[in-house]
């Protein structure tokens, strides 16, 4: 006798289960299916292409009516089940239908989460779950000047926004987190995705909290964010997640957590009732993707036929975004665990970013953007837990290359290349040209090969190949040695190339630079991030948004950290001048905050040492009130301009050295530089301001101003060298500003002026700053432009509330001991 199998849910899980059962034992059960939607079974994950107009509803139907008929399945479509009686083993549906079962399967799926925002019941507010939602969205898209806002930057939200943009709507995604799909993607891939969506007409607003949905005449008109911004729209899609639909199970008093709780055989606490798909909770997890559904269906089909001991072990997840032309894949743990190691590959030309996470010699996770062809191969390696140590060198290049080169010596591979094989794609240089140049011109190192053939002279990614060609051609005569020192271990490129590319390619953010220059780490390190932040700030003044998380603590909190974690505070004293009022304010603030040490610095200022971080804004507010601003004693920036008293008081003074120092400092303060810049102005050659050991020094003489650069009095002791001599104070200021701007534009991060001078040569600097009035003026103008957004007191900004979180603990004092 056949057993009565009743399935509640005509979705992907319910129908897949039937297929799996029919495969195993087609005669065993009389099957009845209840579906809440009044239609046959369709592929819900393909709703996005339907929305985008890339597929029709007919395309995504999995089982048509004939299938139900041919397999003897009774379908009650549009008949929602309203109750289960587990004692009598019956289910009752709307319209008074009652059906008995021997085995009952819950495949009720999930419901989209609706945020309880004010206005959530307005017309035009929809979720993205079934074909009715798609129809509602398409209707809204047909209105003139249609605009959509999608809340939720996860998989579903992005696919909805993309589909709506394809239908001609202006679509904006609002996401609570600051990276799209943050559960699947890291920051680098998230950045690329944001850009790719923008190119496809989808704007993103990140880190945005929704406050209320606005409406007029009962219809949605916009979304208001917590920060006050309003995004106008006539369609609002909530795609913020799903909730297992467990209402029937709960009413039938089955065990329910997040979803219907099942064991490894998909059995609920009632042995005749099973649950699969998104409504089920297995080992504490309620899945929301399709792959686990297939795994559950296979297990349950076994359990219901010949294999009662089959067990579902949980599923490893992979994600692929269905947006045409945007290839995104993510699987496993990209944020790893202990002892994880990253392999990163970037191809700027093709917009590719790949990151593999290795753990204990096995692949633990993968994030891919732009080229996800090998996603399934990586996913298989993860699922099977195959050891990858032996293929790790080629792993990141994918399956074809890894399997092609298995066991092949990389040198042999290069040796086997034909002379006509291209080595450098950027400059179109083939192997034969390189070999010929090495032999004919007796080249012995990479630099000379670069200079002669241009191979590896552009993006540099073929450098290892060129080195191998050198090694093969020269044999033992080759000594590996590379060009400029790289910025850090995250990149093969030197500072010069990085700076040039930022300007030439108009790179405007750290993730953009890392992608364009093919960084080897996902998010850089403490060496490269501050350097990139400075280079971007210098290249795009007023436009680049400073990344404070890429700044060393001192520049982030605008004070100098001390050995015990307290800070020192040095207000600016223009040219070393102060007043009784300033001194009183300093004395008062030292008293008020019990500042333990007050010391005179070498740069003619006063240092307040031992200030607690949380007190910094209050200390600054007192100093601001007396007219003082930050002295930037903590920064790679203009520090002090030390002066002597000059013609004001000194019987030997030849010029107004104090006044010149004050004017230089008032014009140049706040400017960020590659390394610290200290200046001095002495009123006569006796040099009481010690200007000849400063980065920039001025010696006043009767006939004018001698301008000197490249002094140092720290690790290195070094006197300045003369740059030029000018007649007037205005010329002196113009020259000093120009040379500092040249240094700002071309110096390497952490390279003091004396080192920069040694690298590029004093003569080069002279030619551009002293001898070329047009270039000098242009440099001056660029500095002046940058100062418009730099000459702002960072202390006053923070007193006014900027970066408040930096100075406050996250929580009140916790009166517990950490476990």
């Amino acid at each position: 006798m056949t057993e009565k199998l009743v399935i509640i849910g005509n979705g992907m899980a319910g129908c897949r289960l039937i297929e799996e059962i029919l495969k195993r034992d087609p005669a065993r059960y009389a099957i009845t299916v209840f579906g809440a939607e009044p239609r046959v079974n369709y592929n819900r994950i393909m709703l996005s292409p339907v929305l985008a107009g890339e597929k029709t509803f007919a395309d995504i139907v999995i089982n048509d009516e004939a299938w139900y008929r041919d397999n003897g399945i009774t379908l009650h479509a549009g008949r929602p089940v309203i109750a289960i009686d587990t004692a009598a083993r019956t289910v009752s549906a709307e319209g008074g239908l009652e059906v008995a079962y021997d085995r009952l399967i819950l495949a009720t799926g999930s419901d989209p989460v609706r945020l309880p925002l004010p206005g959530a019941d307005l017309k035009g507010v929809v979720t993205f779950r079934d074909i009715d939602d798609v129809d509602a969205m398409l209707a809204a898209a047909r209105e003139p000047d249609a605009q959509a806002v999608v809340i939720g930057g996860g998989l579903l939200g992005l696919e909805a926004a993309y589909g709506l943009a394809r239908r001609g709507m202006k679509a904006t995604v609002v996401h609570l987190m600051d990276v799209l799909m943050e559960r699947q993607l890291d920051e680098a891939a998230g950045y690329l995705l944001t850009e790719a969506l923008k190119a496809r007409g989808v704007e993103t607003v990140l880190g945005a909290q929704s406050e209320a949905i606005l409406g007029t005449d009962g219809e949605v008109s916009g979304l208001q964010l917590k920060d006050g911004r309003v995004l106008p729209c006539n369609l609002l899609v909530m795609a913020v997640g799903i909730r297992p639909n467990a209402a029937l199970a709960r009413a039938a008093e089955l065990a329910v957590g997040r979803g219907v709780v099942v064991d490894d055989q998909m059995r609920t606490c009632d042995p005749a009732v099973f649950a699969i798909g998104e409504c089920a909770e297995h080992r504490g997890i309620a899945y929301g993707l399709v792959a686990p559904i297939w795994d559950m269906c296979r297990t349950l089909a076994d359990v219901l036929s010949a294999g009662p001991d089959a067990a579902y072990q949980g599923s490893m997840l992979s994600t692929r975004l269905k947006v045409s032309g945007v290839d995104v894949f993510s699987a496993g743990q990209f944020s790893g665990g202990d002892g994880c190691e990253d392999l990163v590959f970037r191809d700027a030309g093709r917009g590719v970013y790949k990151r593999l996470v290795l753990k204990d010699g096995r692949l633990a996770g993968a994030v891919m953007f732009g080229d996800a062809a090998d996603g399934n191969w990586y996913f298989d390696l993860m699922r099977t837990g195959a050891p990858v140590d032996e293929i790790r060198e080629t792993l990141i290049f994918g399956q074809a290359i890894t399997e092609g080169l298995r066991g092949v010596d990389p040198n042999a591979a290069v040796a086997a290349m034909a002379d006509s094989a291209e080595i450098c794609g950027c400059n179109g240089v083939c192997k034969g040209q390189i070999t010929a140049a090495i032999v004919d011109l007796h080249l012995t190192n990479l630099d000379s090969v670069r200079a002669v053939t241009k191979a590896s002279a552009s993006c540099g990614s073929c450098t290892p190949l060129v080195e191998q060609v050198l090694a093969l051609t020269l044999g033992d005569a080759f000594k590996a040695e590379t060009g400029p020192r790289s910025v850090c271990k995250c990149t093969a490129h030197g500072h010069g190339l990085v700076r040039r590319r930022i300007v030439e390619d108009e790179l405007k953010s750290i993730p953009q630079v890392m992608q364009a220059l093919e960084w080897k780490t996902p998010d850089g390190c403490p060496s490269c991030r501050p350097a990139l932040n400075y280079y971007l700030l210098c290249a795009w003044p007023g436009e680049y948004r400073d990344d404070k998380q890429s700044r060393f603590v001192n520049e982030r909190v605008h004070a100098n950290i001390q050995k015990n974690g307290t800070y020192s505070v040095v207000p600016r004293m223009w040219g070393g001048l102060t007043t009784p009022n300033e001194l009183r304010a300093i004395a008062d603030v030292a008293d008020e905050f019990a500042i333990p040490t007050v010391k005179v610095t070498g740069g003619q200022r006063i240092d307040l040492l031992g200030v607690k971080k949380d007190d910094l804004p209050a200390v600054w507010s007192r100093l601001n009130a007396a007219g003082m601003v930050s002295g930037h004693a903590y920064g790679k920036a203009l520090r002090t301009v030390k002066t002597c008293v000059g013609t004001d008081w000194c019987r030997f003074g030849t010029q107004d050295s104090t006044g010149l120092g004050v004017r230089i400092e008032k014009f140049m303060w706040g400017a960020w530089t590659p390394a610290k810049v200290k200046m001095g102005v002495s009123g006569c050659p006796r040099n009481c301001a010690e200007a000849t050991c400063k980065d920039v020094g001025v010696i006043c003489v009767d006939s004018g101003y001698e301008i000197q650069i490249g002094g140092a009095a720290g690790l290195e002791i070094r006197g300045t060298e003369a740059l030029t001599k000018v007649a007037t104070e205005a010329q002196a200021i113009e020259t000093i500003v120009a040379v500092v701007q040249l240094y700002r534009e071309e110096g390497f991060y952490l390279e003091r002026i004396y080192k920069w001078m040694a690298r590029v040569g004093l003569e080069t600097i002279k030619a551009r700053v002293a001898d070329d009035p047009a270039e000098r003026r242009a440099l001056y103008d660029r500095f002046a432009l940058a100062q418009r957004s730099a000459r702002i007191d960072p202390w006053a900004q923070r007193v006014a509330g900027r970066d408040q979180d930096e100075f406050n603990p996250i929580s009140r004092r916790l009166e517990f001991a950490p476990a």
Partner: protein
Amino acid sequence: MNALAPVPEILWTDVGAVTDIPRQGARRAPTPQGVIAIFRTGDNEVFALYDRCPHKQGPLSQGIVHGRTVACPLHNWIIDLATGEPTGADAGKGCAHTVPVEVRDGRIRLGLVAG
């Protein structure tokens, strides 16, 4: 009197939202036993350590966060956020103590015992 000391019950205490911490940054949570530094990485993982570098007790919360490590602001020791151990050349030289932390629905909870 029970011979076995009772296993202290861990109390999970909410200290704020993940988004209260800047990405690639940290915030501090003071306790009577010292400040706890709570880190958020670029990958959105959250870790908690006592805010003291094993080297010279530098405040790790003030360092640059990169990957799953933080660079101590005093002498640039690179500390693994998951284990509290120094990495690279300084591996094996002591350890910053970890604090149990979990994230649920975007909220951060520290594992504490009643003291």
